[in-house]
């Protein structure tokens, strides 16, 4: 599942991962993602950090509270290459990160790390 308030980012991620053979579910912010996650067989969550309604850090925290998604791999997208955001994300329970801007191959490489 890709979570981003930017349609173009979602578009790009979906297109890239679809071409790599994955099915991609989309959500526009943290709240939307939590709703769509329930009952979905999501295998990897890719989330932006800055979003309306519920930001990425809060989403990661809440997802980690859900028994079904305790071990779900979560990759955060950050424009900030600074360590602070990254550390906050890791503390919240993120499994990995990608720094924007990135190329399609990088995204697929990270997805392959987490998805068999």
């Amino acid at each position: 599942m890709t979570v981003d308030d930017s349609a173009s980012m979602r578009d790009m991620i979906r297109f890239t991962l679809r071409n790599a053979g994955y099915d991609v579910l989309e959500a526009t912010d943290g709240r939307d993602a939590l709703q769509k996650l329930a009952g979905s067989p999501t295998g990897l969550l890719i989330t932006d950090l800055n979003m309306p309604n519920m930001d990425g850090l809060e989403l990661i925290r809440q997802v980690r509270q859900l028994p079904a998604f305790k071990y779900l791999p979560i990759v955060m997208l950050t424009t900030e290459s600074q360590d602070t955001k990254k550390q906050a994300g890791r503390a919240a329970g993120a499994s990995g990160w990608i720094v924007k801007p990135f190329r399609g191959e990088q995204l697929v490489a990270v997805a392959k790390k987490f998805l068999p």
Partner: protein
Amino acid sequence: MKYSHNPTETFLQEAAELLEQVEGNALEIMPGMDCTESVNRLFRAFHTIKGSGSMFGFGEVAAFTHHIETALDYVRVGRMATSPELVALLLAARDHIAALLAASQTGKPADAEAGRLIIEELRALLPKEAEPEPAQSTTPPPPPAAAEPATAAAQAYRILFRPNINLLTAGTDPRSLLDELRGLGECTVVADASAIPALSKIQPDGCYLAWNVSLVTDKGESAIRDVFMFVEDGAELRIEAILAAGPAASDSAAAAPAPALPEAAHAPVAAPSPQAQPARASAKESAAAAGNKSSSVRVASERLDLLVNLVGELVMTHSRISQVAARAGIANLDTPVEDLERIVASIRDAVLGIRMMPIATTFSRFKRLVHDLSAELGKEIDLRITGEETELDKTVLDQLGDPLVHLVRNSIDHAIESPERRERAGKPRRGTIHLSASHEGSNVVVTIQDDGRGLDLDAIRAKAIDRKLIAPDAVLSQKEIINLIFLPGFSTAEKVTSVSGRGVGMDVVRRQVEALRGTIQISTQPGAGTTVALSLPLTLAIIEGQLLEIGHDQFIVPMSAVAENVELEAVERTSRNGRNLVPVRGELIPYIRLRDLFEIRGQAPAIEKIVIVHHEGHRVGLVVDRVLGSHQTVIQSLGRFYRHIEVTSGATIMGDGRVALILDLAGLVRASGQSLGHPALAPRS
């Protein structure tokens, strides 16, 4: 309403919308008022423009926007107050970004001086201690990493990895890390379980194992570091190169004196298997597509769904009212009830019309797919699209994408030959794939046509025999042979390529199409091409059905499938040794007794009715007590608890309040599990 599949176009649309929001939000900032929310929205808008801009090659936009974002961040954290000057600058910045975006489209450079001035004035507003930091996100995406100078000789490494105890709860499966290492070269993994504490002290989801790995690889140390890039925090990771690379076997033996137990690594203590399956949910498209004309309104698709559901209730309530009115026999009631009927019908059509979208949005993404895949496979393929203005319900469109992608991929990968082969066969070098959509009655027919090699019927037959799907001596028509490829476990891919052979076979495509209450048909001409035709209902919300009754229960079967109704006499029923075949004008037709299938108690009438329906090109009879006539009905989903019931595709509430199940023919045939003289319908042992 256009949902482009070109991310750059989407970005431009999105940026245009965001800039519009910026204007609104900036104007909401008034002196002396709490405008936290407006500032947050502004920050996010600029943040998205910056982030997405840098992704899609708008470096200049991203660089400029970065300064605006920085200023807004100061406001956000309270280190700077809002002011009319700031609002003016934000608006000027907004115009400048719009100009930069327009410049990228027209090729005329925007006024760089204007941008510089805005940034300078903005800096003047920043609090004194604020160091204007350099823009960091303006770098274009890094160029493809130059292939690590492959150390020609393989190098042996000894790796110790003792992960952070919270590895599992951070969503990482150590097995995938080890598998990744194994992918790098010859690899021996030994698990070190010495750190596992006493049971009373154990943290159930902690990862107490460490791994000693001997790896011989020619990929270099950085490739090994890459494997652990996300898990180095709080972990112990030692990577040592072992000098002599030659006798790798003895090296790994030295590194792993204990009997190598790679399997031990597969069983981390108390490690519940993370849900690491690729998401298989049908991807739901984002809300209604972006429209940049003022004549369209963006509405969340959930609102439309709600509206459609409510209209469904309205239609059903209306039909109950009209039944009650008819029974009440009050003459004065007739006219208003008739008026109501007219209005309800108009509302229904109007609401369903809102969800109709041209199939162009679904088709357009194939341009890129065909382009990329044909390049990858060294084929020359043109994509022709016709009928893209044909409209379909959005829910149908959303679920149509996956099967279409699969079919188009099949065409590119298997059907269209290489240019050389095409020339030898006397065909133009460039192959053509033709996607088209058109109305056919109450259905929309989507076809994928290619001028490739056509299906090899002998190969299909041979493979089906090989896979024990049919008997070696089975006599099959051409159509029946083609239908074999829809069987689960059948795949014509000779080799697994990156394009197809992913384990998703045509059986899945057929199931996806059937889930849309559609049908799929293939026709082929060896050497000349293949045509796949999908026939889909315009909408999933309303179904034209035939109402059937058994005992006191009512059922609906889609009218489009019904061929004819005949009678079945009790005598006939018993005379064929329970083989459930009935002769209809010389043809023996298999039938399913719904009374038995649904275990409805009571005595069947002496003369039952058989509704003959088409199913995958065959005729199948459904035996019921009575046929009550045609009925237009709104489909209600039965909800999650009933999702495994395959014989029905939903239900509807009748005028008198009773519930009628809508029958799913494919499911019915599967459930009845009887041999209907067709391999696809036969129970497999």
